[in-house]
């Protein structure tokens, strides 16, 4: 199954969120923070986090892309720990903005985190949500852009230039932070410093490496799609320092 490079691209961001940021005492806690993976194709990294949190069993994880009620390659809200189904790019930030607005109106301490891909910024609907969140001062909304510079069929600077991405978000009225997307402490520290009670919505532009940590995957378009062979799997685990 594909999207392995995309999952590695966000693995450190997801580690920072689930390890240090998200206030989720339990997947069904009524006041939990929401995390929306708008780039749903990278959900493998989130399943790993849910497993490490103890909310997903090893057998569930092992059934990834199996049949029946097994985990799919895009998140489904029927899975414990997944609050929003995604998979069509340009949708998650709108739902997140609505949830953030609803939480503010309810006086809830809930914060809403939405992880989008850089190529997802091609979608016009994303900018509708960007405008809306800034206009309504959704301080409890935090977007994170996975800026790995590539998309399904090319590199972003050659497909549809996003540059200067941070300035674009800033021009739309967001509180913008540029962070190393593989520095867990920097990501967690930046988010800890955000005012999520008042003011504009926040965005972390996180520079990442597609396929991070696996030499033959890094910055290679084909690893958006390809599954690994057994040998490639073993090499990847060795390079990542994980046990087979």
């Amino acid at each position: 199954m594909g999207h392995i490079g995309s999952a590695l691209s966000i693995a450190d961001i997801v580690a920072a969120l689930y390890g240090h940021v998200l206030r989720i005492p339990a997947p069904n806690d009524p006041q939990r923070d929401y995390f929306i993976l708008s780039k749903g194709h990278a959900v493998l990294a989130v399943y790993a986090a849910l497993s490490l949190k103890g909310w997903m069993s090893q057998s569930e994880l092992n059934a990834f892309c199996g049949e029946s009620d097994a985990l799919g390659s895009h998140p489904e809200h029927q899975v414990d720990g997944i609050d929003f189904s995604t998979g069509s790019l340009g949708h998650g930030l709108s739902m997140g903005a609505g949830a953030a607005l609803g939480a503010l109106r309810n006086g809830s301490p809930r914060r809403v985190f939405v992880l989008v891909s850089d190529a997802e910024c091609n979608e016009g609907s994303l900018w509708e949500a960007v405008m809306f969140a800034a206009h309504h001062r959704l301080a409890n909304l935090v977007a994170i852009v996975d800026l790995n510079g590539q998309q399904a069929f090319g590199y972003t600077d050659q497909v549809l230039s996003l540059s200067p991405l941070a300035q674009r978000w800033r021009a739309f009225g967001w509180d913008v932070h540029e962070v190393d997307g593989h520095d867990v402490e920097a990501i967690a520290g930046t988010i800890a410093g955000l005012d999520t009670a008042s003011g504009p919505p926040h965005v972390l532009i996180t520079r990442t490496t597609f396929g991070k940590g696996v030499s033959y995957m890094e910055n290679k378009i084909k690893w958006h799609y390809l599954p690994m062979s057994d040998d490639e799997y073993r090499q990847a685990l060795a390079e990542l320092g994980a046990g087979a």
Partner: protein
Amino acid sequence: MRGAFVRTLAELAAEDRRIMLLTGDLGFMALEPFAEKFPDRFINMGVAEQNMVGVATGLAREGFLPFVYSIVTFASLRPYEFIRNGPILHNLPVRIVGIGGGFEYGHAGLTHHGLEDVGVMRVQPGIALIAPADHEQTRSALQATWDLPGPVYYRLGKNDTITVPGLDGRFDLGRVQVINEGDDLLLIAMGAIASEAAAAARLLATRGIASTLAVVSSLNPAPVDDLVALLARFRLAMTVEEHYVVGGLGSLVAETVADHGLGCRVLRCGVRSAPNGVTGGQAYLQQVHGLSRGALVDAATALVTKSMAVEAS
């Protein structure tokens, strides 16, 4: 229907604080009864229908009952995938309100004609689809469905004066409303054009053709049992809708006939070609597409006459 909708929604909102109204920058001179009474529960979302539906999905997830409002085409077609992957996929109580089914925005051109909204919504199993026939039924339909647990699409007309005689505001989810009874022909109508179908039925009676008129305003859940019972009694049925003939009421009736092995012949009256380049008001466009009461009478007469000729031969 629009006025009845807004007034009824304001009444409901006075009783239930979860109700919110979001508009895609439309509804000037229409939504004020709600907006002025509940300014903190009314949001002009700007001209951004996808985001409007996405935000409504998030609000519904937080326990609100958001109604999103625009002209039929902009409410249903532009954000269609957001409706599918949002409230339908998550089974959340977002209400999509489309104004101006069919040719109600006649002079505004094809971009404003609501001719396929019922078709695209009807294929989604997870959304209720309500197309009231007049303002009285709009009120009762909203009262009956506003707090359904899942999403709802409302297809509303703009007219708040015309009523379908004999309908008397009746509405039941998943049921058909029968207006008058006659044995020669079954007329089945959807939406505001039901009043034209009712007028056609009266004219047919003067020609000696006795018809039963059934109004279908609950398209999903479809009134299958009622339709089967009605269709089983007739050899001839004619559907009337201000919508493309594919996907809407005519398709529902034809599917019902096929699914249940009924012997009823169905003539679908609706729009069969895109009205590109043809300009005019609603009445003119109805006439062009064979949906005026006169055209309906002619079509019904021809159907009955042909059937009698076949029978005689």
